[in-house]
């Protein structure tokens, strides 16, 4: 009657499938993340495409964007861009950092809902009475929050590139397909989202309302916003090496948070203190 091997994997998959089914039945949990994603998407188009079109002034004529022109003169593959296209490419690349916030926001709202929702519905006790281990449970919970968040983030990125292809100057979209841009979306985004949701899970195991968990998870947004401001003001230029270094730091942070999460998420506290 029982399946012999791979029991842990089967349990994780079972709970992950449940998490995804639960989310499909409650899509409203994604609303904050979708709003964040839309803002991240629309803001650069507003600045780089809509404002110049409405005012009739070219961005490249403004002395504020000289930095952009200098930067793009140095980038191989983008040197062929005209002045206006170079400024647009610079804007689209800077605002790409905002797309990192999309999976962070999505994973936080899902994770806080996922753990605290179980708490409030008193569904954890029967779940913990099965052979599932704490690590398996946390893995499924984290994956159940991370996967939809990443899917949303990648869809946002595809729309971003598609939008640049359709509405920006010719060739601007290529600035979004450089190694640096791809590292931001496919390395920093997932790692930042993972860190945020692990923080949310850690906090969820100690508090009773989703908002507290989301607020702590939001701490990860602050450094991301700081990066954006530093880039836009020209005080920092995120190179590929710097992105890799930040990625390494986030990976280490994630490792620490995993250990902390398992320590905090102990069955005894959940069962005896969760009311």
């Amino acid at each position, binding site marked *: 009657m029982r399946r012999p091997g791979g029991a842990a994997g089967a349990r994780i998959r079972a709970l992950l499938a449940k998490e995804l089914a639960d989310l499909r039945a409650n899509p409203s949990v994604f609303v904050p993340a979708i709003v964040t994603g839309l803002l991240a998407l629309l803001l650069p188009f507003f600045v780089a495409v809509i404002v110049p079109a409405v005012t009739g002034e070219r961005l490249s004529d403004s002395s504020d964007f000289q930095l952009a022109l200098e930067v793009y003169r140095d980038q191989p593959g983008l040197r062929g861009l005209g002045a206006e296209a170079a400024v647009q490419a610079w804007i689209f690349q800077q605002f790409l950092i905002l797309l990192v916030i999309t999976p962070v926001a999505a994973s936080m709202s899902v994770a806080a809902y996922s753990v605290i929702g179980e708490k409030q519905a008193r569904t*954890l006790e029967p779940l913990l009475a099965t052979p599932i281990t704490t690590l398996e449970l946390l893995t499924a919970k984290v994956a159940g929050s991370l996967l939809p968040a990443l899917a949303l983030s990648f869809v946002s990125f595809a729309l971003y590139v598609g939008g640049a292809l359709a509405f920006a100057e010719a060739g601007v979209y290529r600035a979004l397909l450089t190694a640096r841009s791809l590292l931001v979306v496919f390395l920093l985004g997932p790692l930042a989202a993972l860190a945020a949701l692990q923080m949310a899970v850690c906090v969820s195991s100690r508090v009773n309302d989703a908002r507290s968990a989301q607020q702590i998870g939001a701490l990860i947004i602050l450094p991301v916003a700081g990066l954006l401001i530093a880039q836009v003001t020209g005080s920092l230029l995120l190179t590929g090496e710097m992105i890799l270094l930040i990625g390494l730091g986030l990976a280490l942070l994630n490792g620490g948070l995993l250990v902390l999460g398992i320590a905090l998420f102990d069955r005894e506290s959940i069962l005896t203190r969760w009311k």
Partner: protein
Amino acid sequence: MLTASHLTRRFDDRVAVQDVSFEVAPGEIFALLGPNGAGKTTTLRMLAGLIEPSAGAVRVAGEPMTRRTASRLRGSIGFLTEAPGLWDRLSVRQNLRVYAQLHGLQEGDRAVDEALDVFDLRAREREPAAQLSKGLRQRVALARALLHRPSIVLLDEPTSGLDPESAREVRDLILRLREQRRAILLCTHNLDEVERVADRVAVLRSRLVASDRPAALRARLFGARLRVTLATAAAPFVPVLTRAGVPDVRADGRMLSIGVDDAAERAPEIVRLLVNAGAAIQAVTPEQPPLEEVYLRLLSESPA
């Protein structure tokens, strides 16, 4: 099958369960009674491998429940928790299917189908759990607890909040589980239910106040008594019995209540004495105070 040995559980300075020992055998229904806060749920959680005892041990089929073995041993235990704890947005079938997978059932869908049939849930299988009545939710929770055919079944208030018909169905199911040789621990406030199904009863108030068969507890607390119903007033026959060396006789209307060492052994002699004295006997039955009286007496005699 399931053994609790000197189980103690402290929460900071508070002792929730102290030095509790008992065994539940296959094919036995063991009822755990006690007032609110007596440590029943904590005991169940220790037995289910959800929380560790501060001292003492739990054994499942002789194997100690430890951090290393708990995950595996939980697979042989079915635990009906106090709250049904269903995932409201998932359908009945989805709820059961997840648990079939968590228990690693190879033919999970078949097990779910069987459970839907056994618990008469087939017509509701696609409904979200949120739409079910309280009774149906409890039925789904029971189906979930028994899906993997556990040899040990822990039931925390299984008929709480159910209408009489549903409660009876649950009781019948518990009796069927006993026929299947499962070891069943029943935790409840419903003494009538215990009276109907339990083989043995334990009364808990942090410590184990008493543990035995209901009849043995009655005999221990109230002694064995015979109740003789007569066609006429009973009072005139009291001296007949006292003169014959039966000292503890009470008359109430047409009823005689007689304290005896052994009801089965003394009944023929008492009937003969009464008949010889001209009594018209309508019925002779062993007198059984309700379990509620036994329970309340036990609690009143134990320190709070």
